[in-house]
């Protein structure tokens, strides 16, 4: 059974339609990327999943229940990290972590100590003096310090530096290996590419594509980069799209179906060097948002 099942979700704020028929499914044991530009409806969806907003239409099931009607019950099984973490200015970070974990039933103390250490977090400072990254650490530590069935993370790493990003990745993998599901919203392609098993791409309030990274790769082309090959011959290869060159290299894109044929053609050109790169999610995004570069 899926951890999150959303079908034909609709939500409007006044005359603005935020969600216009979104489908989303998250299964146990997967890290599910929820990818879209700012304003696509990611946070609205997440707030509906948490029962903070009420859906106008469609069905929403989280951990087998309706999050609007059974919010408290659903929340017992999940941990949430908001996109813009706001804390009580007078409380220290340590106090907020304790409060949030206690509300969920208490932290695993050993795990909590490890998280504070891993994230190199100073829990004694007052919340008002924390930077954005440190406020995010508070919410992340509180979320990870107690096992949950589902982790809902709304752009959780936007304030973290690369080292902390690595710590974050380790803990995501840990909870995934323990069988939990993770819904990770992001507008950063590299992050989703690095962390997620499956991805749902959302645009203007509706999902435009869902699948594993493998499946989504079929939708776009592979980039070939040759060095030390005859440029004119390379440009003329059947199936090579948008060729460009400079110095001693030439680069072109190939449709997935044409890859075997092009490979044979490339071999005949006897290049000195060859790089074949899978498309980055940047390219996936261009595919879906090509109409507004």
């Amino acid at each position: 059974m899926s951890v999150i099942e959303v079908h034909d979700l609709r939500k409007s704020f006044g005359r603005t339609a935020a969600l216009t028929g979104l489908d989303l499914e998250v299964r146990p044991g997967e890290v599910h990327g929820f990818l879209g530009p700012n304003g696509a409806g990611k946070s609205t969806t997440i707030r509906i999943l948490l029962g903070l907003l009420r859906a106008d239409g469609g069905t929403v099931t989280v951990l087998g229940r309706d999050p609007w009607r059974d919010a408290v019950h659903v929340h017992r099984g999940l941990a949430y990290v908001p996109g813009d973490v706001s804390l009580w200015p007078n409380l220290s970070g340590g106090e907020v972590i304790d409060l949030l974990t206690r509300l969920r039933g208490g932290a695993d103390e050993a795990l909590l100590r490890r998280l504070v250490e891993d994230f190199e977090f100073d829990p004694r400072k007052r919340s008002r003096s924390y930077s954005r990254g440190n406020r995010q650490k508070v919410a992340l530590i509180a979320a990870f310090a107690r096992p949950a069935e589902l982790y809902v993370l709304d752009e959780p790493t936007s304030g973290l530096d690369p080292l902390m990003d690595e710590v974050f990745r380790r803990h995501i993998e840990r909870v995934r290996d323990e069988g939990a599901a993770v819904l990770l919203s992001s507008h950063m392609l590299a992050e989703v590419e690095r962390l997620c098993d499956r991805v749902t791409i959302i645009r203007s309030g509706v999902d435009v594509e869902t699948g594993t990274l493998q499946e989504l790769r079929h939708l776009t082309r592979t980039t070939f980069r040759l060095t030390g090959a005859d440029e004119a011959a390379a440009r003329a290869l059947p199936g090579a799209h948008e060729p460009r060159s400079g110095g001693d290299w030439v680069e072109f894109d190939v449709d997935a179906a044409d890859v075997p044929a092009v490979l044979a053609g490339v071999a005949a050109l006897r290049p000195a060097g060859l790089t074949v790169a899978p498309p980055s999610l940047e390219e996936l995004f261009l595919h879906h948002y090509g109409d507004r570069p």
Partner: protein
Amino acid sequence: MSTATLLASRLLSERWRLPLWIGGITLLTAASSTAVLAQFADPEEQRVLLLAAAANPAFRFLRGLPIGIGTGELVFFQIFTYLAALAGLMSTFLVVRHTRGDEDSGRTELIAATPLRRTAPVATALGTAVVANLVLGVTVALGLALPGLPWRGSVLTGSAVAVSGLVFAGIAAVAAQVLPTSRAANGAAAATVGLAYLLRGIGDAMAQPDERFVTRESGWPSWLSPIGWGQRVEAYQTDNPLPLAIGIATAVLLGAVAVAVAARRDLGASLVRERAGRERARGSLRSPLALVWRLSWPSLVGWAIGAAFLGTVAGLLAPSVADAIGSNAQFLELIRRLIPGSTAGLLDLFVAAILGMAGFLAAAAGAQATMRMRAEEADGRAELLLAAPVGRARWMVAFLAVAVASVAAVLVPAGVAAAVAFAAVGEQDRTGSSLAAAAAQVPAALVFVGLTALVFAVLPRLTVPVAWTLLGVSLILGEYGTILQLPEWMQDMSPFRHTSAIPAEDLDAGGVLALLAVALATATLAVLLFRRRDLAV
């Protein structure tokens, strides 16, 4: 961005809040001058009232100095110190909001990155205060002159109110530079307003009336108070603008100090440092109620200290009121006209009036504690708790419980302090009635807790302005309704009208039950409706 643009954007951001302050203070002014002109048109009555006040230190402490026996002097005596204190509070919150408040929220950092001087945020915050106080000065002058008071005195009163506001704006600007948070700066600067009111009160109480019972020389403590300086203009009497210069010079000096500190310190730094927090939470911090208590208890302590002070004043000064004017039959007659149908003694009326003030403070404390829900929701902290296994009802009830505790934090100290003070001056038989008088204020205060919660549930984004407006309108209807001769049904809209003024009146059990029923109904409805609405950021 230029400095002028910044000033304009500050004024624009105040387009709702400032008019509410200025309008409220002006309305109070106009209501008071209209009431005095209508009710005390007879010069003989005015003379009696002023003589009674002049003879009594308690009245002088609460209101000011009776500087003469004309209508204008009577209005000035009755209202100037209130207006100056309100202008001070308006300016304090305004300046702190745009200086340390912006710094707390990170807005100042954005401004600091533009090619403006480092002092621009402080300078424009002070500029906003200048504009606000100038407008306030003009509207107060109009509120006095249009009902029929002389123009010269009215303009001078408006100017004195504006200058008092500017001095407190300067104090707030310095506090915002020196203290680490907007909460601390607001607290310190608002306490200065209270201290200024207290100092001039002591000074006025120390004053000696001359042989004509006119009192124009207050004691030395009054000279330490910006409100005391404002009183020296003696509007409608000598109309002396010179004392305004002291206030203007002080305001300019304080503003210059704030700008100088701002030019030298790091962004976010302060002279007073903050202590480190706890590494782990106390064991008790494990529920929404514990959190709301943790967030709110400092303001409860503040309310309790203020209320205890008020109760002490009632107890200590009441006997001297009775001694000074109890024998004046004409004055008693005047009082009876203000409270129709009352046959109560003067002392009872005084105690009832002071504890009525405590009742209003209790309503304000309860409403303020309830409004905290809106800040929690708007800043996204409600989301953090409500995404944990905490139901909407449990979350809201935690705030309502602390709001009820805030009401108690005002009325318990007020009643107990009054009882103890009465005992200290040998009026032991008044102990019980003081406690009863404080207890009688509870139901109306609870109504404002329920009403504020209901506004929050239905119109979340308007919670703060609507709730304060309800409180302000209820105060005016309850306090001035009779004098302004408003229709009975309109006066009855104010919950304060249904509070029994013990010991001047008997307890009205029907009123108590009705108020409690309204409080309970609004609070219950608020919980039900909040569970059905979206969180509104």
